[in-house]
């Protein structure tokens, strides 16, 4: 069964800069990663989509506010509405919030400083397509690097939607309720500020991010089987 290779699209916006890292990590974990330019109106036939980190459209206006209107995002919105798996990392998380695919919004860090550090993140739920390889309550060490990662939740955000939290005392940006990652109500769209693609090999300081991405690859493979 291991020879079945799921296909995962990694979107590339003007200003994305973690697209290749994400594609490399997904490929290392057994996926066929395809870079898809933001101007494409249709996605290739894929089993999941990743929106990578970076500074799409120069972060003009608000982070992610302009990228949400790109043609490829219209395709991603339809893909997600159809139950497709979508993972947004950092700027990808910001785009998903601005697009209304995830609740809330990312604001400038409470410190007003750019933060770049390895942070401990607690896994609150393991019953999602993005965390199935984790243990409940497991602490993952994954780097963050952002200026606008302070998550502001809508008043009615369900606790169940909080999949990842910064460990106690390790909140790097002032996010409400220590939120590091949220999932949509249907459970098929996740956004997180930490960069799992930068933590897939102990040589880089931590391999914990691989648990998140490998969970996604597993789930994408299951989708592929379901379609076949």
């Amino acid at each position, binding site marked *: 069964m291991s020879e079945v290779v799921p296909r995962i699209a990694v979107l590339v916006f003007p200003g994305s800069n973690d697209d290749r890292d994400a594609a490399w990590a997904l490929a290392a974990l057994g996926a066929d990663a395809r870079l898809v330019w933001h101007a494409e109106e249709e996605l290739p036939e894929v089993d999941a989509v990743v929106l990578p980190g970076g500074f799409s459209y*120069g972060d003009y206006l608000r982070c992610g506010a302009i990228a949400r209107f790109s043609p490829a995002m219209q395709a991603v919105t339809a893909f997600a509405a159809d139950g497709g798996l979508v993972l947004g990392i950092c700027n990808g998380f910001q785009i998903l919030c601005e697009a209304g695919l995830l609740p809330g919004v990312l604001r400038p860090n409470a410190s007003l400083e750019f933060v770049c550090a390895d942070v401990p993140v607690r896994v609150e739920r393991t019953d999602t397509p993005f965390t199935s390889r984790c243990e409940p309550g497991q602490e993952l060490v994954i780097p963050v690097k952002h200026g606008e990662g302070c998550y502001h939740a*809508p008043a009615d955000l369900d606790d169940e939607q909080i999949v990842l939290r910064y460990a106690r005392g390790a909140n790097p940006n002032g996010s409400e309720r220590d939120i590091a990652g949220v999932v949509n109500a249907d459970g098929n769209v996740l956004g997180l500020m930490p960069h799992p693609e930068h933590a897939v090999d102990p040589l880089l300081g931590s391999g914990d991010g691989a648990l998140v991405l490998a969970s996604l690859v597993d789930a994408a493979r299951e989708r592929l089987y379901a379609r076949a």
Partner: protein
Amino acid sequence: MRATVLVRPKAGILDPQGEAVESSLRQLGFPVGEARGEIERMCERLLANPLIESYEIEVAE
């Protein structure tokens, strides 16, 4: 005291953010510089995030 200060680039100074926003508005089908109702819709759809921001519209002429 409460004061509102508007700082703008002078005419002729490159404003990449302004240009990116204007081009997004055009892509959304907004004819830039139209009536107040249109401006309100621009604010709702792109210029402001209603979850965290409010907006006021001041018409110059």
